[in-house]
């Protein structure tokens, strides 16, 4: 099942540019969608599986982006080394932040992650001598991988596609493992998870770091691909969009998050024509999905099918599950 989904996805990603060569939608929009998928899949590990909201995820995306931008332009580091440095920075900051921030729940966690995102964004705007301020940093050299320079949209499509499939693969593996089950257990019944020997604080910290690493990875790729970064790409609104992607597709499903990311990217492309209405539609969509399909489009629909199936299969007067509570 896990592998089947992955292969369907992979085949689609490979076939698209072959069926539609030099198509603007496939290459340019595909690149944006791929980056969004990496971000959403990472955030979904944190939000969907571990149940921890983050309204500041653009900060980690930005750390990767700015690390690559600053290190390659200022000190002329090779792209891969700058990317590693970005991962190191984002991972370390996530690790330091995880314990105090993930002790918070609900609204408090939302506020804290949001505040963190704003603080990092202000730094991007204000630390002008490093970041170039509101104007951003340009002239980022193209990414060079073992002597191969990535410099056309089509090449970027393939690089991002590979990166995206890698991230999806890692995520699928992780979720269906001892670590992933522990995470889902923490989200579902934290006390019971602890009693099964799961160090819940450690589990949350780990997943926070992983999702930050995925975001920083996407940030580095983004910086090289655009050859330019500015604070606008890492603002609070971007964090909100990332959350939207995860919930749009459906939390706690890797493919759901991926589909949400692709759907929102396409929606943005489609709404370019109605630029003035973009915010309106974005907001209305967010509300409608949360009200009518709180499990998200992808998960809501697939679960609907699955439910119907099992409902027919086992129509025996099953009691409603009791609400878990501290005994």
């Amino acid at each position, binding site marked *: 099942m896990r592998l089947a989904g992955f292969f369907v996805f992979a085949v689609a990603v490979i076939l698209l540019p072959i069926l539609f060569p030099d198509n603007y939608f496939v290459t340019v929009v595909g690149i944006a969608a791929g980056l969004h998928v990496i971000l959403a899949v990472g955030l979904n590990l944190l939000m969907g599986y571990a149940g921890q909201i983050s309204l500041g995820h653009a900060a980690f995306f930005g750390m990767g982006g700015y690390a690559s931008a600053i290190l390659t332009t200022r000190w002329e580091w090779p792209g891969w080394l700058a990317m590693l440095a970005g991962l190191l920075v984002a991972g370390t900051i996530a690790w330091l932040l995880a314990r105090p921030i993930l002790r918070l729940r609900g609204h408090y966690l939302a506020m804290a992650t949001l505040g963190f995102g704003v603080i990092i964004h202000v730094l991007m705007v204000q630390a002008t001598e490093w970041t170039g301020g509101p104007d951003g940093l340009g002239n980022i050299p193209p990414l060079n991988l073992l002597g191969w320079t990535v410099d056309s949209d089509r090449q970027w499509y393939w690089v991002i596609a590979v990166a995206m499939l890698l991230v999806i693969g890692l995520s699928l593996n992780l979720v269906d493992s001892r670590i992933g*089950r522990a995470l889902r257990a923490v989200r*579902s019944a934290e006390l*019971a998870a602890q009693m099964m020997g799961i160090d819940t604080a450690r589990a949350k910290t780990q997943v926070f770091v992983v999702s930050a690493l995925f975001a920083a990875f996407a940030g580095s790729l983004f910086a090289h691909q655009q050859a330019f970064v500015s604070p606008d790409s890492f603002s609070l609104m971007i964090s909100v969009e990332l959350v939207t992607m995860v919930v749009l597709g459906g939390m706690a499903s890797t493919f759901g998050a991926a589909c949400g990311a692709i759907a929102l990217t396409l929606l943005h492309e489609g709404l370019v024509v109605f630029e003035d209405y973009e915010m309106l539609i974005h907001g209305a969509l967010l509300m409608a999905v949360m009200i009518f399909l709180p499990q998200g489009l992808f998960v809501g629909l697939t679960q609907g099918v699955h439910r119907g199936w099992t409902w027919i299969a086992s129509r025996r007067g099953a009691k409603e599950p009791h609400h878990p509570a501290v005994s």
Partner: protein
Amino acid sequence: MMTAHSSSLLTVEALEQSFGGVMALAGVSFQTPEKLVYAIIGPNGAGKTTLFNVLCGFYSPTAGALRFDGHELRGLPPHRIAALGIARTFQNLQLFFNMTVLENVMVGCHLRAKTGLLSAALRLPRVRREERQLRAWAAEALELCGLSDRAGQLAGALPYGLMKRVEIARALAAKPRLLLLDEPAAGLNDTETMALRDLIARIHATGVTILLVEHHMPLVMSIADRLLVLDYGSVLAEGPPVEIQANPRVIAAYLGGAVQYAV
């Protein structure tokens, strides 16, 4: 009465737990000998579940000592206590409702496996081997609890009685030395309760020490080796079932009402 058993697995000494001045446990002492079924009974509010929660590290006791196999439990977080070999079920179900029965029980095996984050993400060959091992262990626990045919179902979709069994299977999968069962018979019908009695006996036969909090007197009296009676957070009596049944203080505390059983 409190003579030290040579093979005491759990020793509780002068345990006190107060919540803002209310004494939920007022100096409770007892010892659980290894490989026995040790039952804790008492009216509602006597402090039974509080005792479990203190044992598991959810509350930190106001005073007293808790020793398990030579380790002091006081001050340890729940996951460290679990690592010493204690597992439990919950009075109010604490299942992972959105996971399958098999996955629930595999979480129970958490401490018996080693797979870390990186190797899990890369799904290295040894991770696959370990997954197979976990499945086998989980299947064993499911088999013992008679849940083998439910492995693939969502835990949240099971009937109540089976959910309670999944909790037991999950706790067993941890291969605990001490198993805490918090009112396993609550909400079960007579047939289910009988089956539960057999299950507890089977678990006991595998060498697990069982600490049982239960209201269902016929069940308790027929399966417990020793009983501890709590009332208002204090020990009212302690001894084998026959002694407890004849204890006038116990009978008085229950006002004859709940003690209508025949052995």
